[in-house]
C-alpha cells in the first residue's frame, strides 16, 4: 500500500484536527460547535498530565523546586507545547533549559540536566538520541559553591568531578 494519500477528505480532517489541537494548547479559540468549557478543561488537564509525566523522570529537579514546580511548569507550558518526539524526559529537558535561561534552575536541577545532556543530545528532528562520542561539561554551582566537571569517554564511561574552594 502506498503511503497515505492526500485526498480532499484528508485535507479537511487535517484542518479540523489542527484547529482543535491549537485550541487545546491555548493557541486558538475553541472551534464552533464544541462544548468550549469541556475543551478548555481538557486542555488544562493535558498540561497537568505533562506536569505528572515530567515529575516521574526529573525527580531531583522537581524535588528542588518544591511547591513552585507546578506553577512554573504551567508558565513554561504556555509558550512551549508538548515536544514533537518523546514525553517526560524531553519535555523536562526543555523545561530545565527554560528555567536555566530565566536564572531559576536550582543546583539539583543543573546536575540532573547535566546528566541528561552528557549522555544524550537532541537531533535535528527533536529526538533525544545517545551521544556516541566524547563529551565534556563544566558547571559552576552556588549552594555550596563548587565547580562540577562531567566527562563522557566512549567505551570507558562517565567521570564526574567536583571541586570546592577550601574553607568555603
Amino acid at each position: 500500500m502506498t503511503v497515505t494519500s492526500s485526498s480532499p477528505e484528508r485535507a479537511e480532517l487535517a484542518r479540523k484536527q489542527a484547529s482543535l489541537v491549537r485550541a487545546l494548547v491555548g493557541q486558538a479559540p475553541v472551534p464552533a460547535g464544541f462544548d468550549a468549557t469541556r475543551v478548555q478543561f481538557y486542555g488544562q488537564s493535558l498540561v497537568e498530565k505533562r506536569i505528572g509525566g515530567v515529575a516521574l523522570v526529573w525527580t531531583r529537579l522537581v524535588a528542588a523546586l518544591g511547591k513552585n514546580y507546578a506553577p512554573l511548569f504551567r508558565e513554561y507550558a504556555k509558550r512551549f507545547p508538548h515536544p514533537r518526539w518523546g514525553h517526560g524526559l524531553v519535555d523536562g529537558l526543555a523545561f530545565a533549559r527554560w528555567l536555566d535561561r530565566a536564572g531559576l534552575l536550582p543546583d539539583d536541577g543543573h546536575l540532573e540536566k547535566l546528566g541528561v545532556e552528557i549522555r544524550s543530545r537532541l537531533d535535528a528532528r527533536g529526538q533525544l538520541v545517545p551521544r556516541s562520542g566524547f563529551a565534556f561539561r563544566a558547571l559552576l554551582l552556588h549552594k555550596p559553591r563548587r565547580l562540577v566537571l562531567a566527562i563522557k569517554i566512549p567505551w570507558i564511561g562517565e567521570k564526574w568531578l567536583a571541586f570546592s574552594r577550601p574553607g568555603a
Partner: protein
Amino acid sequence: VDRIPRLGLGCAWRGQLADALARRTSIEFIELHAENWFAAETPAANDPLPESIEQLKMRGAIVVPHSVTLDLGGAAGPDPRRLDMLAELAERVGAPLVSDHVCFVRGGGLEAGHLLPLPRTRESLAILVENIAEAKDRLPVPLAIENIASVFQWPENEMDEATFIAEALERTDSLLLLDLANVVCNEKNHGWDPIAFLDKLPLERLAYIHMAGGFVQDGIAIDSHSDPVWKRALDLLEEVSARIEPNGAMLERDDNYAAFGEADLNRELDGIAAAMARGAARRRAGSSVRLEGSHDGHVLLPRAR
C-alpha cells in the same frame, strides 16, 4: 480474525512496580508503554531490558508493546518511523501483538500529548481504516485497537463510538483492546450506556482488557490511572466475562504510586481475577446475561430467557 495466544492476568509494567511484579508469580503478561522504549524518548532504549522484565519473561510472561503516538485516526496517517520503532520493539520482546488507540494525537504541527476523540463521520472512518491498514502492513504482528475515554465530542458525529470502532475492526480485520475504565469515564462524561456499548462490539475480536481507576473533577471523569480500579469497571468486567472468556485482562496504574504499595497492587490484580471468575461462573451456569441488549450472533453463550 488473527490468532493470538492466551494472555491471562496482566499488568502494565512500570519501573515503580517492577519489584512487586517480579515477585508476583501469577502475572501472565505485561504491557510495555512502547514509547518509553523508543530511542526517540530515551537514549537507553537499546540497553538490555530491566532485570524485572527478563525475570517475568523467563517465567513465561508475554510482553505486549502498547503505543500512544501512532495517530491511527490522524489526517496525516501513521508516521512510518514510529511504526518501525514499534515493529522493532515487538520483535525485540517477542510480542504476539501490539496495540494503540482509536484516536488522534497531533495536528497543525503540534502534539496534544494525549489521546483525542475522532469525529465519527463516514469520511473520518474511511481515513482511520486506511491508516490502520497501512500500520498493519508495516507491523510484524497483529494490531489491537483500543476505545479511549473522552471529555468532549465533535459536533459533526454521525454514529456512536461502538459502531465506529466495530466497523473499523471489521473493515481492517483487527483485534479489540477493550478499556473498561474508559467505558466508565464515557458513561459519566457523556451518559453512554456501557451495556449498549458492549452489545455493539465484536467481542470475538477481543485481544485483552484494560482496567484502571481515575477521579472525578468538576463532574468530569478523568482517566488518570491514579486511583483504585472503578467498581463499575469491575462490574463490567464480570459482565464481559459472563458473555465470553476474555483472552486477557490487565491493570494500568500510572500515578499516585506513593499510595500504592505491593499489597495494593496485589489486591487490585486479585480484584480483576475475581471479577473474571464471577463472570465465568455465571457463564458456566448458562444464565449468562442479566442485562438487556441486542446482539448480532457473536455471543458465545445463550442469553438468559
